[in-house]
């Protein structure tokens, strides 16, 4: 009987110790959860780059040109890109030279070049299909130049002819 009661006492003591430990652990964990904390979340957004175009001048005059003669490829047009992305190329196309619906001459009589030339023949002939101008990168915040000229066909009727030239920056 005496041994039994001492065992019971031992068990009670062990139980009491375990309970105390449990309370202690719980209080510690609880204090961890109860503590308020602050953390920073870093947000970022990438705004896409843009390339732009601005032409100066936006009209070019070749003056008086006799039939069978040419204006050299030296009329300057500046293509500016005020965007923050490089324009990988300048694409170009044009229309026929029109006096009236029945009197006109071909778009290919207009020539262009990246450098000024004393001849129209050395320039590239303009076409009515959008074509990249070779080596015509327009850097972001920078500009590039194109020179234009015109050949007037032989025996072309006199008059004031007009043409549209489209210059486009691509990025």
């Amino acid at each position, binding site marked *: 009987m005496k041994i039994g009661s001492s065992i019971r006492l031992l068990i009670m003591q062990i139980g009491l110790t375990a309970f105390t430990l449990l309370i202690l652990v719980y209080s510690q964990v609880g204090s961890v959860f109860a503590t308020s904390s602050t953390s920073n979340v870093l947000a970022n957004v990438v705004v896409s780059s*843009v390339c732009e175009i601005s032409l100066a001048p936006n*009209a070019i*005059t070749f003056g008086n040109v*006799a039939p069978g*003669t040419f204006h050299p490829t030296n009329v300057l047009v500046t293509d500016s890109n005020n965007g923050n992305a490089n324009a990988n190329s300048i694409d170009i196309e044009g229309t026929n030279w029109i006096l009236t619906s029945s009197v006109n001459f071909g778009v290919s009589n207009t020539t262009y070049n990246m450098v000024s030339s004393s001849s129209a023949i050395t320039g590239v002939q303009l076409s009515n299909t959008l074509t990249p101008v070779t080596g015509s990168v327009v850097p972001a915040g920078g500009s590039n130049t194109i020179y234009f000229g015109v050949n007037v066909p032989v025996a072309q009727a006199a008059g*004031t002819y007009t043409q549209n*030239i489209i210059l*486009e920056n*691509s990025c």
Partner: protein
Amino acid sequence: MKHGSAGLRLAPFLFLAFSIFSLSYAQFGEVAGPVNFNVTLGSSQTLNMTIVNTGNSAVKFVATLGYLSTVINETAPNITISPSNGTVAGHTQETLAITVHMPSTDTPGTSWIGIVSVAEVSNSTPIGGGAYLQAGVAKNISIVASKPVGSIVPYVILAVLLIILAAAIWYYTRNRKQALLRSEKKAPIPAAAVERRVKRGATGKAAANKRGARGRRRSTRRSSRKISSSSSAKRSRAKRTAR
């Protein structure tokens, strides 16, 4: 060919080429980045192109397909741009949807390159002569025809059918086995079979001698003894009960 004084002498054929245009300095641009289409045969894909007007004045524009390469023996994909024209107010942007429809007859892997052109349209009309310059933005596009992905539905149906078939076979074989077991348990040993066994025990010795199988002979002997001993025991038990 000469220019200058020679031309001036030919008065009737002179060109008066000058121009008067209103100058606008709107900043027209586009969001950078490639536009690459991978279009399944017989279907369409739409990608966007964004144009921006960073200037103060509104810009009228017209959007067209400026260029598309050609591939021999292949039908060119159909390209539409929406909207194809409009006005972008100052400091705003406009998103254009470029849709490519790939003909089903084209070969997978065929590729095209093209340029989508968005040109500024000026309100001014050339009064004089000369070349009028229009600014614009262009987007290079690439298009690749891809093979259509096979539907998963036939494979699912096939899998379900196989599962059903397997289940049916398993169920059939299982039932057959159970039926066999049941029939074996239920069927009583016929009396004729018992008699045959007893006879075999009696005549077994001779048969075993003939075959010369020693082991078989022993077992036959043992079984005959068992049968005879059991029958004598039964007889004695019957006598005892009669008494």
